[in-house]
């Protein structure tokens, strides 16, 4: 095939690579930086792609498909693999029939996550192979190999990307195409392989131990593990994006580029180590390669000078190598510090966001601005356990509305735990609709079953806003745009046994306040569904609100909404008409003590 060069992001390249590898079933739950992988898969019409309820289900659907001889793929962000880890381990034991590739997109630097765990450890834990691209070309290429390895060795294959790989574009030579239709899906009876009862699981463990040995032999000749011969004074082992930084910084050195980072090619590494005077590893996050190479009895350094926290870049690699004496010190000349005193611009809840009204209500009812102002730690009047989504932004002032955020779905259990431990405060859990579907339902079941008294507020904006507006079970639209059955949150809660359920308009501040007050006083589990469309999905923005300067007393109460459209640069508060959402919202108009805001 002729050269066909395209500028693709890592995620686009992974999707195209999977498509050209003949994937027929692709599943995912959204999560930065992995989301675009499934979004790109869903555009292909000759395969099945779904947004699953959560990563565990996504993994199980992909496993089921692979058991039928179909090539399947599941993608998620790093913390998604925590959720999916149970079926993930099982998939290692059962193996597959059709190729199964699991993509984990890690987030060094925590650009948009709650931690920066290094998921390379998972491949070692599950004793399955792991591949790591250094750019989009590798991503495209590795997908092809991943499926072949999966089928040849009867194993799921893990492919690990990072934010910098997934969200960077680079040139890809697209030199493959979609294979013609493969065999129809068929599942064949094989209990020893697929039923993980103790009698069958123990022999499977023996099989995966043999498998990882064979895979280690294969790693020695894996064509994308490559030695790049340079100066023999310094040898660098690197994978992923760190390889690019290291090559830029050490343009003369010899390199061992590992595209397969589990299992490791021991002979190749030993040979490489023997051919250079000094061996170092340049890797992001944990000393995964370094420790495993050391365990081979090879002398190697890396994390002694390369930071384990945060993402790397050429500056960090160059400077830390300078300190370690691996580079001349000239690197440090000409660095300027950032300009001082510039105001930051953190992400915000949008003008017209349906989350603003309920957070304002919780802020004022719970007198939460006082908590922030106080020097001593205070017990909130109203504890708000939080969750993950756009609504986590309600943590920041002026709303200051959240007390906890751990991982998706955690808020409900935490709220119940506080209540059962006996806190004086009333406890409210707040959770988005997609998060509720993902992992809030079991928490609600727990609260009902164990006679909790907590109030659970479900923010039903009819989308997964945070990650870029994906559909979810509550919207009734599939990843490929088909109408399906929508799961109704209200009847779901009723079915679980909740009696106090209120559905409130997100833009009606009086109703929000009354309903929260009412629910807090009840000795039972209460659910408040706050309903209002995500402002980014509403096109119509009529009648932006205005401040009537005659009536306005400059009390600045409206600024406590944290609405980006309401600006107070000068003495007079002003509503920026191009930002105001107008009629869909009107919250500032409702709360202004002077009735000074109107059309």
């Amino acid at each position, binding site marked *: 095939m002729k050269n066909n060069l395209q*500028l693709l992001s890592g995620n686009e390249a992974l999707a195209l690579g999977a498509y050209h590898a003949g994937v027929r079933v692709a599943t995912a739950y959204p999560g930065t930086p992995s989301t675009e992988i499934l979004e790109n898969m869903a555009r292909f019409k000759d395969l099945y792609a779904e947004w699953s309820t959560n990563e565990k289900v996504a993994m199980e659907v992909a496993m089921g498909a692979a058991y039928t001889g179909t090539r399947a793929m599941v993608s998620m962000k790093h913390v998604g693999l925590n959720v999916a880890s149970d079926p993930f381990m099982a998939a290692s034991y059962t193996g597959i029939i059709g190729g199964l590739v699991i993509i984990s997109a890690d987030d060094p630097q925590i650009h948009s996550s709650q931690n920066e765990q290094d998921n390379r450890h998972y491949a070692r834990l599950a004793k399955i192979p792991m591949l790591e691209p250094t750019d989009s070309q590798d991503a495209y290429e590795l997908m092809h190999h991943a499926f072949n390895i999966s089928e040849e060795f009867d194993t799921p294959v893990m492919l690990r990307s990072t934010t910098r790989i997934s969200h*960077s574009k680079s040139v890809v030579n697209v030199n493959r195409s979609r294979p013609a239709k493969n065999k129809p899906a068929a599942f064949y009876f094989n209990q020893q392989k697929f039923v993980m009862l103790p009698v069958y699981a123990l022999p499977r463990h023996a099989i995966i131990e043999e498998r990882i040995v064979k895979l280690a032999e294969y790693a020695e000749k894996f064509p994308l593990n490559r030695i790049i011969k340079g100066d023999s004074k310094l040898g660098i082992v690197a994978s992923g994006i760190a390889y690019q930084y290291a090559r830029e910084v050490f343009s003369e050195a010899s390199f061992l580029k590992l595209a397969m980072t589990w299992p490791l090619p021991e002979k190749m590494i030993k040979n490489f180590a023997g051919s250079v005077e000094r061996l170092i590893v340049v890797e992001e996050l944990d000393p995964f390669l370094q420790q495993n190479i050391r365990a081979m009895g090879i002398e190697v350094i890396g994390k002694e000078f390369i930071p384990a926290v945060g993402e790397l870049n050429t500056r960090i690699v160059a400077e830390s190598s300078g300190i370690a004496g691996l580079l001349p010190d000239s690197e440090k000349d000409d660095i300027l510090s*950032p300009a001082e005193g510039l105001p930051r*611009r953190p992400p915000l809840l949008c003008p017209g966001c349906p989350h603003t009204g309920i957070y304002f209500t919780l802020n004022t009812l719970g007198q939460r601005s006082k908590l922030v102002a106080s020097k001593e730690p205070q017990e909130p009047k109203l504890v708000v356990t939080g969750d993950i989504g756009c609504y986590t932004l309600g943590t920041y002032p002026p709303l200051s509305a959240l007390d906890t955020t751990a991982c998706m779905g955690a808020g409900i259990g935490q709220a119940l735990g506080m209540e059962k431990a006996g806190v004086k405060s009333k406890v409210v859990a707040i959770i988005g609709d997609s998060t509720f579907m993902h992992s809030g339902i079991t928490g609600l079941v727990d609260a009902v079953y164990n006679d909790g008294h907590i109030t659970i507020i479900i923010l039903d904006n009819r989308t997964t806003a945070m990650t870029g507006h994906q559909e979810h079970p509550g919207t009734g639209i599939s990843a490929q745009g088909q109408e399906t059955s929508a799961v109704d949150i209200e009847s779901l809660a009723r079915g679980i046994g909740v009696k106090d359920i209120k559905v409130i308009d997100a833009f009606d501040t009086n109703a929000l306040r009354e309903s929260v007050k009412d629910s807090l006083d009840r000795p039972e589990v209460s659910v408040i569904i706050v309903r209002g469309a995500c402002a980014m999905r509403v096109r119509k923005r009529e009648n932006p609100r205005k401040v009537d300067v005659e009536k306005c007393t400059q009390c600045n109460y409206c600024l406590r909404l944290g609405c980006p459209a309401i600006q107070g*640069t000068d003495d007079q508060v002003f509503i920026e008409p191009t930002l105001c959402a107008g009629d869909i919202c009107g919250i500032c108009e409702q709360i202004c003590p002077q009735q000074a805001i109107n059309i």
Partner: protein
Amino acid sequence: MEKLDILVTGVGGQGVVLASDIIGEAALAAGYDVKKTDTLGMAQRGGSVVSNVRIGPEVRSPMIKDGEVGLLLAFEKLEAARWSNYLRPDAIAIINDYEQPPLSVSLGQGKYPTDGEITTALKRRTNRIYFVDGNRLARELGNVRTVNILMLGCLSVFTPLDADVWKKCISQRMSEKLRDINLTAFGKGREEMENVRIK
């Protein structure tokens, strides 16, 4: 051309990513190696956005090292100042003369820098600073949202890529409805830069 490192910055919703995508595509079409990377922060709107585009015979890291940006294209003034330390000596900075105060400024917790402060920050590295009244010009063309392509027009005169390559790549990225107005905006940006340079 040895290499060219371009930083495009602005506020969520201003079209930073699209503009930087087009730079990358144009460079690829002109036969260069390209890498680019976007940092969007946590949410969709209102936060700082920055794209790194690196062009050259062979590009390794997609991220530009501080002190090596040759061309800065900023759609908002504060965001231009924020990246001043990334410029290399004598870099070219093209800045939309437009101010969008962040929330902390509205709440009285921060101060928006004056034009003087912004230029001082940039002048630590370069005197080649061009302010363009992009929002006004785009509004006059009939759609303020074309400001990103207008600014791209300004940038394009400082690159070795032909105007035709730019236009082709812009056309490919636009729906039929928006194609003409964006091509006009691009032309307007080029023109504006010619004027600025003559002055």
